[in-house]
């Protein structure tokens, strides 16, 4: 297997709406990534493209966007729900690792802002035969987790609110983030309840924008970059479909299983000690808490204290989502790639909200009705140790 590194990244600013067409946004992000990598579009040998079609009101947008990045290049489309951003990146990684190509571009774009109502689209993910009638969308599903967790561990609404405060604080330092405003615990608690117990300021926005990352084989990466972000390992996991199959909503066992597998494969003994920063996919406050516990950073029931105690702050013991995370920026099909990009920028030493001496980072995305997870580990070094 070839060693692979990310040599360039680009993001557009994420907003409610870009006044541009689909391919124009892709072009913008691609241009930035190419500049960062120091290469030209003709050096890109293949493209992997990801998007969650229905939100953007265009079926198979890769056809249209090929005009921006991929005409006459081998171009593959990945679509896996919320994990799309990261699975697209991993498909690009697979392409380079296989030896078929040396420079591959991963492109993700999403224009949730153009969709008048995202929840009605998300409702179409839910099975029309047994479950769609219930009006369940992504928020309800996270609310289920919050209810179960708060009941089991006696967590308070404030505990969750601190996650939102921390994410918003971080987003202020990220020029690409969508929501950039300071919020207090009180602001969060006073915001209207959307799906109890989650309130508006505990939920992600609908964001519009694109992200691009360029993957290169070891030989090429070494020539082009002093500080590439090496991919040390990846994994994905897929649970059964029905929401009611989840044995326990107060924990995310499928993520825990995936985490253990990945740590074992890469040689991570103690995630808290080994990782310097994590970019986890939490469009809702409760999910960061569940993810920290599932991934072994916090013990069961203790994740709720991390934000309040400053453990997950950018200068804390386990900086989590220094970019502001998905809570502040959610271009759904691209969010997973943004996590990987932010994690990579951290280990490259080029992040806007830089964690000091970050060398090892974890990127995560989840999708479906709590069904899928994807994980990737990036490092400033070619291998662990």
């Amino acid at each position, binding site marked *: *297997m*070839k060693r692979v590194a990310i040599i360039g990244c680009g993001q557009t600013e994420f907003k409610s709406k870009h006044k541009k*067409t*689909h391919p124009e946004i892709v072009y913008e992000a691609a241009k930035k990534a190419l500049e960062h990598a120091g290469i030209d579009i003709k050096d890109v040998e293949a493209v992997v493209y990801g998007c*969650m*079609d*229905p939100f953007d*009101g*265009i*079926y*198979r*947008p890769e*056809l*249209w966007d*090929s*005009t921006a990045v*991929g*005409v*006459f*290049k*081998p*171009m*593959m*489309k*990945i*679509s*896996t*729900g919320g994990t799309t951003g990261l*699975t697209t990146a*991993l*498909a690009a990684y*697979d*392409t380079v*690792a*296989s*030896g*078929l190509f040396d420079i591959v571009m991963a492109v993700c774009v999403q224009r949730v802002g153009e969709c008048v109502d995202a929840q009605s*689209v*998300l409702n*179409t*993910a839910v*099975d*029309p*035969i047994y479950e769609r009638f219930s009006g369940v969308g992504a928020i309800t599903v996270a609310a289920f987790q919050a209810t179960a967790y708060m009941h089991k561990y006696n967590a308070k609404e404030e505990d969750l609110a601190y996650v939102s405060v921390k994410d918003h604080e971080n987003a202020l330092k990220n020029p690409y983030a969508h929501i950039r405003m300071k919020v207090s615990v009180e602001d969060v608690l006073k915001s209207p309840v959307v799906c109890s117990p989650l309130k508006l300021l505990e939920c992600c926005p609908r964001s519009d924008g694109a992200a691009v990352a360029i993957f290169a084989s070891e030989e090429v990466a070494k020539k082009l970059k002093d500080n590439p972000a090496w991919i040390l390992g990846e*994994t*994905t*996991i*897929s*649970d*059964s*479909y029905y929401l009611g199959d989840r044995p326990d909503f107060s924990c995310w066992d*499928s993520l825990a*299983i995936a985490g253990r597998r990945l740590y074992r494969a890469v040689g991570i003994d103690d995630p808290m000690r080994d990782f310097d920063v994590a970019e986890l996919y939490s469009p809702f406050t409760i999910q960061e808490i569940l993810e920290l516990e599932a991934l072994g950073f916090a013990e069961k029931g203790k994740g709720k204290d991390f934000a309040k105690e400053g453990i997950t702050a950018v200068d804390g013991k386990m900086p989590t989502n220094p970019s502001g995370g998905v809570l502040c920026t959610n271009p759904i099909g691209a969010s997973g790639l943004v996590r990987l990009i932010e994690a990579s920028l951290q280990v490259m030493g080029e992040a806007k909200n830089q964690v000091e001496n970050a060398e090892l980072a974890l990127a995560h995305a989840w*999708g*479906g*009705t709590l*069904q*899928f997870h994807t994980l990737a580990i990036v490092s400033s070094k070619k291998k662990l140790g």
Partner: protein
Amino acid sequence: MSHLRVAIVGVGFSEFGILKEPFYNISFLAAKKAIEDASIERGEIDSFVLGGYDNLGVGRTISNMYTAPAAGAYLRHETRVADDAAFALALAFMRVKSGLSDLCMVLGFGKSSETPIELVELQSLDPFFLRPFNLSLQMSFAMQSFCYRKKYGVKEERIAECIAKDTENGSKNPKAFLRSKVSVEDVLNSRMAIYPLRELEIARWCDGSVALILASEKIAKRICDRLVWIKGIGWSNSGYYFEELETLPATKSAAEMAFKMAGVERKEIESVEVMDLVSDHQPMILEALGFAEEGKGIETNLEVNRSGGAICTNSYGSTGLFLVANLVERIRNGDIDSGLAQAMSGYAGKRALVSIFGV
């Protein structure tokens, strides 16, 4: 590049037809058969790559929420390519080639009986310049046929022979959807659907699922005696707007990549499966693949579409993989030693994938 080759060690088909079960139940059957065919257990598969069209074909956003468990990916590594499942074969190939996976399942599903596919495909046109014209997918194929016949002066009687040949083959293939023979006369007597294409020249839609098990060389040799190697794969696209309709540049480009990787000559290929969604596609594809000169695709002696081609089995999402699977089975059975399969998707075949197999 890893020197270990990638082989196909298991194949499973569901029935292909208008199936009154949800797409995931159909997929389960194909997956189960492939696992049984390879004589392995679900737990031995370390990677699942799903393929097929998302959301609109099946009315559910994120279709792999349903097909992942059906493939056997419960608590396992899984990802999904959103295109004809032949494209999923490419990703699966790379995962095994790289060493990331030893035993990988590729599962493709096709579901067209629950919604009008023309309306679905229409949404892929941009809302500003193209969609307002309500140009259906088949209309783009008709445009191609018109340009092809005009440029090369090929008569409709000759093109109709492709339908006669395909349906003759389909009638002998128990796996195909359409099993009745159609003569050139039948084609020419069928009503004009979209000029110049007659009704019997356009592939009909159906449902069906197919699964393949890929294995890395060392493991493959423990599983199967006669191994079918994936010798080369290439894929490409030719942009978005409509130019050069009488040729298939994406297929040409994909073929170049596949042949280069495989290191074989055209003349070494014994049989070809092409995704002829309309009659003219057959000669057009053969030309793009390099088996015939421009305009002469109708004159090749090559064995084409023993499965019946897409004309007999067109299951929106798994057609390309169906053709691959038919070809692979014939190589495994010893009928032939080498073959090539082509798939395409999108308006006017703007995305294409070519795969080359051999012993």
